[in-house]
């Protein structure tokens, strides 16, 4: 499993932003889209381009806040912003990742897909080093 210490190519993550597209569809239509979606993902896995992804249940909680550590139920203010699942892609360029995302069968029903490069190193670490250099430079 890929983790923060991996040295291999990091790939891309597809985050599926789901609205309630299926509410408008009949049982048969939903089943058709689900079958297409399953075939699409299984095809990508068979080609070695994706690792098995996961769907997420719609419920959940959000933890936030400095000390009080507020726990609230649910994602989520906007149904269309809810992340319904994700897929990790083993491809080398964002162009390839986008081309794969564009073939998602649910796009036609109004979902959207966020395509994000998985980071080799935490961007915050990189920023901390940049800042340290700037501070050194300023004090020199």
């Amino acid at each position, binding site marked *: 499993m890929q983790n923060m210490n991996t040295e291999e190519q990091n790939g891309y*993550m597809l985050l599926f932003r789901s609205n309630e597209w299926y509410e408008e569809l009949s049982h048969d239509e939903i089943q058709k889209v689900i079958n297409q979606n399953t075939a699409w993902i299984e095809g990508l896995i068979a080609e070695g381009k994706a690792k098995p992804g996961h769907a997420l249940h*719609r419920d959940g909680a*959000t*933890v936030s806040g400095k000390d009080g550590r507020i726990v609230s139920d649910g994602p989520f203010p906007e149904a269309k912003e809810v992340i319904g699942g994700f897929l990790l892609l083993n491809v080398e360029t964002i162009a390839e990742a986008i081309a794969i995302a564009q073939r998602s069968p649910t796009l036609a029903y109004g979902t959207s897909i966020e395509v994000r490069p998985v980071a080799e190193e935490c961007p915050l670490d990189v920023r901390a080093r940049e800042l340290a250099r700037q501070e050194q430079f300023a004090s020199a």
Partner: protein
Amino acid sequence: MSTQNPNQNGYMLLFRGTDLRKGLSSEELQKVTDNWMAWFRRLTEEGKAVAGNPLEREGKIVSGKDRVVADGPFAESKEAIGGYFLLDVATMEEAVAIATDCPGLPYGIRVEVRPVAGECPIAADIRKEAQFAQV
């Protein structure tokens, strides 16, 4: 609701907010990232975290029938997802307890805790409906 029921598929933590670096010195920022890595390492050693990754800030969003490609999410925002962990824990309580240890919380990071589904929840719903209709 999966809050009480054990979920054998685990939980996902989505870290929201990519603007925490604003206003922090390099030392403070380094401390937060070091704590974050130590937290992830500890969870991995305990067998509670099975995967985790930071995401690069820039990306693209593909949407709609016409499969339009747009830039996004915006570089620094409260909503953007900065990374994730996959947890191998059995209950929502455990997952939430882990989320409350996130070193980014004091800096405005929010942690979304989501049960991972064994099968697509939409597929499960319509299967249940179909069974119900046959009764």
